[in-house]
Structure formats: C-alpha cells, structure tokens
C-alpha cells in the first residue's frame, strides 16, 4: 500500500544527512516498503479518545540540587574529537564561500 519511491528514499536520506549511493536507493526503498507494510496495521486500531503516551513514567520539571561539581577538562573533552584547533573542535566549512 505504501510503495515508497526512490525519490522519497533520497529525500529521507538527505533529511537524515546520510549519503546513499544511487544504486542503493532501490534496495532501501524495497526494505522500507516491507517494514512500513508490516507496521501499517497500527492504522486498524481504534484509538478514538486514547491519549498518546510518550514516556512510561510521567515526570515534569525534574531538577537536581544546584551544586557545583568538577566538569571535564578541555583536554579530556577534546580528546575524542576528529579535529582540534586552539582548544576547540575544528569543523568543516559552515558558510558558503559566495
């Protein structure tokens, strides 16, 4: 019923920031289609007047005591970074050059 297209897969891959090779789009389209087919049964359940549940334990405004504790030293925080410059995360170009 769903029949997800190659173009939709490409769009989803773009939204999720995952480069999918063109020759893989068809493959993922078929698999996503099969999964969506299997989960589509949710639409058959009568949920009129049923509230949505986002979380098993309803809690709001959970605070902890405002006590200063030691935090990570910059060196430790940056130790696993792919690229570092001047004690900061070095990132690829963010703005277009034009």
């Amino acid at each position, binding site marked *: 019923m769903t029949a997800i297209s190659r173009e939709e897969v490409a769009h989803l891959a773009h939204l999720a920031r995952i480069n999918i090779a063109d020759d893989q789009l068809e493959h993922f389209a078929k698999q996503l289609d099969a999964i969506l087919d299997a989960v589509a049964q949710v639409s058959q359940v009568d949920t009129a007047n049923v509230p949505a*549940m986002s979380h098993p334990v309803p809690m709001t405004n*959970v605070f902890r005591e405002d006590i200063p504790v030691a935090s990570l030293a910059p060196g430790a925080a940056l130790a696993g970074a792919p690229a570092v410059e001047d004690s900061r995360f070095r990132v690829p170009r963010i703005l277009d050059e034009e």
Partner: protein
Amino acid sequence: MSDLIRMNASDLVEAMNAGQVSSVEITQAHLDRIAAVDGDVHAFLHVDSKGALDAAAAVDAQRADGQNLSALAGVPLGLKDILASKGLPTTCGSKMLEGWIPPYDATVVTKLRDAGIPILGKTNMDEFAMGSSTEHSAYGPTHNPWDLERIPGGSGGGSSACLAAFEAPLAIGSDTGGSIRQPAAVTGTVGVKPTYGGVSRYGVVALASSLDQVGPCARNVLDTALLHSVIAGHDPRDSTSINKPVPDVVGAARRGDVKGMKIGVVRELSGEGFQAGVQTRFDETVTLLEGLGAEVVEVSCPNFPHALAAYYLILPSECSSNLAKFDGIRFGLRVGDDGSKSVEQVMSETRAAGFGPEVIRRIMLGTYALSAGYYDAYYGQAQKIRTLIAQDFAKAFAQVDVLISPTAPTTAFKIGEKMADPVSMYLNDVATIPVNLAGLPGMSLPIGLAPEDNLPVGLQIMAPAMADDRLYNVGAAIERELLSKWGGPIWAQAPELAGA
C-alpha cells in the same frame, strides 16, 4: 579451587571470604578462558586484562585489610559496549565510534567500580543495539556457545555468550525491546530488564530514550539479583531515574516462594509463530508453578498483537533523533574533510561510512514516521497504542501478581538465516516488547531445552513497575525446582567448547 569459571558469583564471594581463593586468581582464570575460547565465540570487542587484574588486586588488598566490601566484590564482569567506560574503548558495535575512548564513566560503571567488580572487557552487540542476533555488529557476529553456528541473541549477544561460555560469571546488558531477555533465553542464562527508571541511563549511549533500560545478566537468579542491587537506584544525573527505594530483589531471590500467588499466562503470547518445543517447556513450567501452590490463570491482553508494529515506529523515531549526535564533529569518525566540502557534506559522508545498513534503515524509517504528513498516522498512532498496551497490563495486574510467557518465539536460529529479511528478524521481539512500551520489569530464565533441537528455552516473567522483586521470587522458585529435576544447572547439558 576446582573450576573457578563454572562457579556462581555468590559462591566465589564465599570462597574469597573464606580465604580459599583471591579475586586475582578468579579474574585470571576468566582471562585465561577468554584467551582460550573467545576466538570461536567472539563475545568480547575489547579485553582489559590489566585493568581487571588491577581492580582485582585492589579488592584482595581491601579484603585482607578487613574492609567492608560489596556483595560481589572481586567477581569479574563483562560490560556491554554501550556503556561509557573511562579509558576503555566504547564502540556500540559501530565503526562510527571505532577507537573512541570516553572521558567519563556511566553511572552504572561507577557503581561497578565502587563495588570492587573487575571489568574484564567490553562485550559485542548489534550496532547501536539495533538487532536481535548480534549479526549487525560492525565487528562481526558473536557465536552461541551452545552451537557456534547459531546466534546468541541480540542486541546483547556478547553479554549472554560470555556467560554461557564461562568467560564471565556476571554481565551488564541494556534492553530496549528485549536485548537482555532474548539473548538470555537463547543462551540458557538469566537476564533482567528492570523497571524503567530503576537503573541510571547516564553514560549509556541512547537508542530509544523512552524504552532503554540497563540491567543485570548472570547464570542464575541469585547472582542476577545481587548485580541488580549493585547497579540500581536513583541518579540525579538521569532525569528519568525513579527516586524510590530499590525493591528487595536479593531477599526475593533467596525466598523463591510462589505459594498462594496468582500468575497470569498471556493468551496473546502463544500459538502461531511459537516453536513447538518452546511451547512444551512453557506448558511444563505452568504445571510446575501449580505444583508449587501458585494459582495460574489465563489472561487476555488484547492490544499486545499491535505492540510490535507500534514499537517499530516509536523506536526508529526516537533513534533517528538520538543518533543525530553522530555527525563527525565532536567525537568518532569523520570522513571526507579535505577542506573543500561543507559541514553538511562531511556529515552525510561520515554517517554513510560509519553506520551499517540496519542503523541506516531505522534512521530513515524514523525520519519518515516523524515527517510532516505522516506523523499522526504513524508516530502519533503508535503512541496511542502504547497507552492501550499499558492499560492491558494495568487490567491484568489487577487480577494477577505476575504475568508469564515464553521469552522468545523460537530457540537460537542459524547465523545468516534472517539477515536478508528485517521484518522476520523483528518478529523475535514479539513477546519482549510489551514491557518496554509500558516501562515494566521483565526477566528471562532458562526452563529447559527444546526437544526438537536441544537448544535453551527461556521463560519471561513480567511484573508491575517497581515490583522487580516479584520477578526474582518467582524465578528463584522455578529455578530451584528445575535444578533438582535436572540434577544441576542447565549448562551442564551444553557441549564443551573446542578451546576448552
């Protein structure tokens, strides 16, 4: 000491207290076992011999000094590679985090270290805990010690296999839809998914935050309870952590008395799709419980047949959001950063290179389910079904103290058998998912071998929130009877590994 690697954790502690053996000797025996058999089993992604032996030596010194020690001090453990461990690689079974060494410990890891539990290493898992077989690990599958051609369950197949292979007497897992219980079932071990919020998630790499829960794994009910009591409790660093006393799981595991209890068999978790031998062992267990004085009744949870579908919308939705943090900027892999590309191009190339196919499928599925035009029909509807499932549980627990079902519909399947068909892989979780959706505790324990294939079958016990002790009480009662019937633990029936 005779065979240290086959001893229960509680017996190892007694032997250490009696001065018959040291933690260093116990830890070394397990490291030797890992060296002998893990080439075949591949339960571990990383072994930390020095760290484990250092921790063991420290505990030995404290014990000699007469210090007050925890109930598991000196007993070594395998840690699922989803928990951040300072100074030890934490990959989540993914190339995305290859070589990443966390600068801090998860709260559970801090508790383990404080309890004097030597950490032998990090155990294998499906990538980012997505899978039911450990075949989705980027570092190759783990093999089931009962039959090396079969899966050890997943996502925590490394943690279950290390127990079944006697590489560790204790292990930590995490359970989002069955990742502790289903591996326990197919390896003949015990695993518990505690009440949601019962164990801290701080420092645990998130898959689906509203479902994930860390829990204990061992080869018997009491050891599992002892480990549960070490890791459980409120943590101010986890805002979903429950600020209430930990249920007396150890007392319950020592009690094991079901006389007068009401136990419900879930009608919807049987029949079609459940292997004959699994059903046989389950039915025998019902008879056993009745013989022990429990009243067993059938209860209906009419919305459970929709749980799997709801789960496979909620989980991908949450994981597509949670895994956005793996963008090649702050930690882990970065690909294609040659100075000419934009940050978005680098992110997209990194994520394509770092994530395996199952992770990519689930992220895209979640992105789809959350996108404009589909949100109400998929994610919104799944959340309403989640409410119906919680209501099914509430109605059932108004009639009975615990619910039971088979943990998994089949025994361990062959490696490779379900890799081409994601939907058939997902069906493994049909019985374990409901408690995750409702935030309840669940246990799997071995109840025998299926007659047709001589592979372990697990029983699932489910209880109301913060009544985790009931799992251990019922589990201990069943275990005691089965041990006397079998004349010893289930693993005595397992084949020897060639490396041994």
